[in-house]
């Protein structure tokens, strides 16, 4: 009888253990299906995570916002409202401490990096700074981007991000209109 009770509690624990990853999937699938797509100009580098393996870390171009308001704390959670520039890339329209109800632009929950008192610029950190790659490819991806940057401009490397209600999912990183995974594969094969 006692083991039956324990088994029932175990079923609840097991359900929670299944629910957490399932919830992670469902939330992201919803954003991928119904979220707005933005392109963020980026520059990848290659670190790694002990459990989740190799990823390329993404640094973005559109991370600063001009404001005279100088009272920001590091790592403070704020909302970045996004717009699209003339070339079709994402840019920050405004940064706010609270949700703006009457603003219909897509927004993201981001972190304050720092405020520069000289240039009056607020720098933010996007929540999608990791792109996981097969371990053999992550370093090559970084090299590919570096070499690509040498002979052309940054416009052809960007992150494809789906955004809905403040939640974002990084879908792909694109180099020369090609997924970085395919790009690296092609580069490896051609060498």
């Amino acid at each position, binding site marked *: 009888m006692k083991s039956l009770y324990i088994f029932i*509690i175990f079923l609840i624990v*097991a359900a929670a253990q299944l629910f957490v990853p399932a919830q*992670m999937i469902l939330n992201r699938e919803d954003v991928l299906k119904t979220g707005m797509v933005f392109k963020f100009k980026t520059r990848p580098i290659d670190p790694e995570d002990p*459990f989740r393996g190799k990823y390329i870390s993404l640094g973005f171009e559109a991370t600063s916002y001009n404001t005279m308001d100088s009272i920001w704390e590091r790592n403070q959670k704020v909302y970045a409202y996004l717009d699209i520039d003339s070339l079709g890339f994402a840019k920050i329209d405004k940064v706010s401490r609270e949700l703006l109800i009457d603003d219909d632009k897509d927004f993201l929950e981001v972190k304050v990096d720092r405020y520069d008192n000289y240039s009056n610029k607020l720098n933010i950190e996007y929540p*999608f700074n*990791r792109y996981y790659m*097969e371990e053999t490819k992550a370093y090559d991806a970084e090299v590919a981007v570096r070499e690509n940057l040498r002979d052309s401009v940054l416009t052809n490397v960007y992150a494809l991000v789906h955004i809905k209600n403040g939640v974002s999912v990084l879908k792909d990183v694109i180099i020369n209109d090609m997924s970085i995974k395919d790009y690296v594969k092609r580069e490896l094969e051609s060498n």
Partner: protein
Amino acid sequence: MNSKIQSEIKELVEQQVISEGIASKIEAYYQSKKDNAPNRLFTVFGVLGALLVGLGIILILAHNWDDFSRSMKTFFAFFPLVIGHGFVGFSILKNKTKVWKEASGTFLFFAVGSSMSLISQIYNIPGSVSSFLLTWILLCAPLIYLLKSHMLAILHILFMTYYATDYGYSFLSSSNTPWFYILLLALAVPYCLQLLKNNIDANITSIFNWLLPLSLIIVLGTFIVKIGEFGVLMYVCLFGLFYNIGKMPLFDNRKLRRNGYLILGSLGTIYMLIITSFDWLWKDRIKNTLDINSQEFYVSLVLFLMAFGVLVYSYSKSWIKRYNLSHYIFVIFSVIFFIGFGNKFIPLTIINLLILIIALITIKIGADKFHFGILNYGLLIIAILIVCRFFDTDMSFVLRGLLFVGFGLGFFLANYLMLKKQKERKLNVKN
């Protein structure tokens, strides 16, 4: 049965110390004890196997297989998890042996981690290692109690320490305080208490007696945000707490190597006293006014009250030998710390005296108990004190040299005298 015991029994019978009847009774007792004990080696290998397989799965998945589709990766994220659930469910429902429970629980622990990490990869979920670890540990914490698994409890303590250090110690950004560590600790403590209550002499209990205080020592530093001086007080109180816990008869009456609280508490206290016997702390202490309304103060206060609680309880049970100053070091230190004295000399003198007195008491305890380890520990404390004072005292080299020679002779003499005494005592016992 242990062959050593068998030969001892044989010898005792031959020497007519015990009768044949008693000998067979003793043998029967050890035999029955052996039959009841589960196969320890099998448990160890079972757990080790599950541990390696689980870690292996995480590493294989960390390769990030680009060629698999998203649905295929999702399947692989859940596959080990469901298998783990199957094994654990089976071992609970059928009330299988300890080996089953330990091994399946360990496997499930890593399956949960691998599942979450694979989904992070599929959807490029950023999140720091610490937030990932926290979810992982919390999801697996109930399994410790459901399976009564030692290995899961050990993994829980190891991973919560990893979580707190990753979250709290950082070189670049401003430091964070891992408050969730306290919750994770609270989840682990009842298990350790249960072990102390039911299985005090088991080897596994002594592993916990070391792991838990070590984890606390490693993590406590993350609770210091701004005021470093309070960090010193926090650690003195923590080591005071460990020392007083370690001196409770529950721990003190057992082998010293099983008593992590006492050893860490004593070593830690001496270490803190030695480093505060230099003048940097007291210089800062005079320069800066302490902000009482700070996180560091409250953490120190909680630790102080806990240590003081244990001290009062031990005193009320008359467990404390009055002359042993080590019990009260954290109280004396706290008083000196707060009074500050306006100059550095008074606190420095008191700290140096405290170290000296502790060393002398330790030597006395070592001599009384005929314990060479404790005796030499006391001598070592004095030696370290002298070496440290060389750094900030103007003394001629001749005098320093003489002091060292004198002290070296002291070491030799103390050990020699005790050895002689011990031999005499053995002779007296024989006669």
